C-alpha cells in the first residue's frame, strides 16, 4: 500500500532533491530574457529561454539592486544562480544572483542603456547647453586632490591668465563614493555660487575607473548645474555620460583649462584692435564732417551770399531799380523839354533881343547901374553902352533933362 502524501510534503521532497543536487546549487545558464518585469517589491521576474525551452527565473531585490544595467526582453545573457522549488506553486525556478550581458560587458551595456535613456529624456539636448563665460573670474575645479590633473590645470590657467581665482573641490574620482562626492561638489558650487564655470574631470583610466562619470547621479547633477560645466574625463578617446550632459566636453583636463581661460595677451591685443578701430572710426567721422563743413564754406552761398540768399528778392530789387531809372529818365526828359520851351520864351524877353533891334543899354561904369534918366549922370561921368554886338566906353559931355509932358 503506497503512502499518501500531502501536496506540501511532495513539493518539500522535490525541493529537497533539487537543493541537494551539487550541479543545481551553483551554475551558469545562458539564454534570452523574456517576460521581464520588476514587481512592486523590487524583485525581478523573467523567463530565460532558448530555441526549444524556457525556465522561470527570479532575482531578489537585494541582488537586483547591484545590477548596473536594466535587463530587457530579448537580451542575451548569462545568469548565475541556483535552481530550487517554489513550494506554493509547485514550480521550480532559477534563483538568479548575477546577470551578465552576452557579448558586451555589463558596464558597457549599462553605459549604453543610461546614455539612451538620458538622451531620450533630453539631457544631452543642444538647447540645454550653456555658453561658457568669455572670461571667468572664478573657476571651480572638481577632481582628485592627488595626481597631476589639478596641478596641470592650475599651471595652464596661471600661464594663460594670471590672477584668476580657483575654487577647488577635492573628490574621489573612482570607487564607491565617487559619484556621490562629485554630485555633491556640483551642488555645493551651485548653491554657494562659488564660481562662473566648473571643470569636472579626472585623468584617463579603464571603463571601470571612469565609472563615476557614467552614473546617473553625476549626469543629473551636471544637468542641474546652473553654472556652465566642462567635462574633462580621461583621454581624447574616452567618452562618458558626463561628456554628453556637460555644456562643453574637453578631450583632456588640460584642454578644459585652455577652453575655459582665454590668453590674456591675446585679449589685450584684441582690445587694442578695438580701441584702434574706435579711434579711427570717430576720426573718420570728424573728417567727414569737416570735409562737409569745408565744402559748405567753399560753396557759392558763402561766397555770393546775397545772390544765393536773396536770389529772387534781388530780381525784385533789380526790377524796381530799372523802373526807377526809367522813371527818372522820363522825368529828366520831361523837365528838359520844359526847360527848352521856357528858355525859348525867355529868349524873347531878353534885352539882348531888344538890342538887336537897335536899342542899347547905358550903364554907369562905376556902379553898373542902368541909366534911365539924363539926371542920373553928369558931364564927365563914364558910362558903358551895351550894343547888340559889342559895347562902347563913353564919357558924358552933356546931360540934357527932358521936359515933363504931364
Amino acid at each position, binding site marked *: 500500500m503506497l503512502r499518501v502524501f500531502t501536496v506540501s510534503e511532495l513539493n518539500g521532497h522535490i525541493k529537497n532533491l533539487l537543493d541537494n543536487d551539487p550541479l543545481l546549487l551553483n551554475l551558469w545558464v545562458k539564454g534570452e530574457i523574456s517576460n521581464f518585469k520588476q514587481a512592486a517589491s523590487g524583485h525581478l521576474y523573467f523567463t530565460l529561454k532558448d530555441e526549444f525551452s524556457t525556465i522561470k527565473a527570479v532575482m531578489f531585490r537585494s541582488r537586483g539592486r547591484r545590477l548596473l544595467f536594466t535587463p530587457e526582453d530579448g537580451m542575451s545573457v548569462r545568469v548565475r544562480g541556483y535552481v530550487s522549488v517554489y513550494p506554493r506553486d509547485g514550480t521550480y525556478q532559477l534563483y538568479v544572483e548575477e546577470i551578465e550581458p552576452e557579448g558586451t560587458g555589463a558596464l558597457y551595456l549599462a553605459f549604453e542603456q543610461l546614455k539612451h535613456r538620458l538622451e531620450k529624456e533630453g539631457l544631452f539636448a543642444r538647447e540645454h547647453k550653456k555658453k561658457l563665460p568669455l572670461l571667468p573670474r572664478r573657476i571651480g575645479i572638481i577632481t582628485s586632490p592627488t595626481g597631476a590633473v589639478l596641478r596641470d590645470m592650475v599651471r595652464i590657467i596661471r600661464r594663460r591668465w594670471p590672477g584668476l581665482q580657483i575654487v577647488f573641490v577635492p573628490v574621489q574620482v573612482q570607487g564607491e563614493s565617487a559619484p556621490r562626492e562629485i554630485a555633491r561638489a556640483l551642488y555645493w558650487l551651485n548653491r554657494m555660487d562659488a564660481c562662473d564655470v566648473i571643470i569636472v574631470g579626472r585623468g584617463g583610466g579603464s571603463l571601470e575607473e571612469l565609472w563615476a562619470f557614467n552614473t546617473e547621479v553625476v549626469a543629473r547633477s551636471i544637468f542641474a548645474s546652473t553654472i556652465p560645466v566642462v567635462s574633462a574625463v580621461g583621454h581624447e578617446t574616452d567618452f562618458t555620460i558626463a561628456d554628453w550632459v556637460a555644456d562643453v566636453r574637453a578631450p583632456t583636463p588640460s584642454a578644459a583649462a585652455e577652453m575655459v581661460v582665454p590668453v590674456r595677451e591675446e585679449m589685450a591685443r584684441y582690445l587694442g584692435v578695438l580701441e584702434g*578701430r574706435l579711434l579711427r572710426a570717430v576720426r573718420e567721422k570728424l573728417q567727414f564732417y569737416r570735409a562737409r563743413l569745408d565744402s559748405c564754406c567753399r560753396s557759392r552761398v558763402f561766397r555770393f551770399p546775397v545772390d544765393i540768399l536773396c536770389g529772387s528778392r534781388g530780381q525784385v530789387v533789380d526790377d524796381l531799380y530799372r523802373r526807377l531809372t526809367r522813371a527818372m529818365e522820363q522825368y529828366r526828359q520831361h523837365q528838359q523839354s520844359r526847360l527848352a520851351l521856357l528858355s525859348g520864351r525867355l529868349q524873347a524877353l531878353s534885352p539882348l533881343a531888344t538890342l538887336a533891334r537897335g536899342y542899347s543899354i547905358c550903364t554907369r561904369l562905376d556902379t553898373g547901374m542902368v541909366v534911365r534918366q539924363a539926371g542920373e549922370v553928369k558931364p564927365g561921368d563914364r558910362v558903358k553902352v551895351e550894343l547888340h554886338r559889342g559895347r562902347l566906353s563913353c564919357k558924358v559931355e552933356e546931360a540934357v533933362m527932358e521936359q515933363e509932358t504931364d
Partner: protein
Amino acid sequence: MKKLTFEEALARLEAVVRELEEGQLPLEKSLALFGEGITLTRFCHQELEKAEERISILTAGDKGEPVLRDYDPSLVDLLNSERKE
C-alpha cells in the same frame, strides 16, 4: 545697475565700434558713442589687469556642510614647487 562683466563690456565695445564704423550716425550720437567706447575700453583694460589670484578649497565640514577655506598649505607647496620648474 548691475556691474558690467568683462564679457558684456567687450560685447558692447564691439557693438559701439561696429556702429561707429557704419558711419550712418549724426555727429552728436557718434561723439556720445565714442565717449562710451572709451569708457568701455578703460574698463576692459582694468579688468585685464585685475589680479585676485587665490586658490580656495571647498570641503565638507564636521556636519557635512560645505566649508570654503582659503587654501591648503600642502596644495600651495605643491603649486609652488611646480612654479619653480
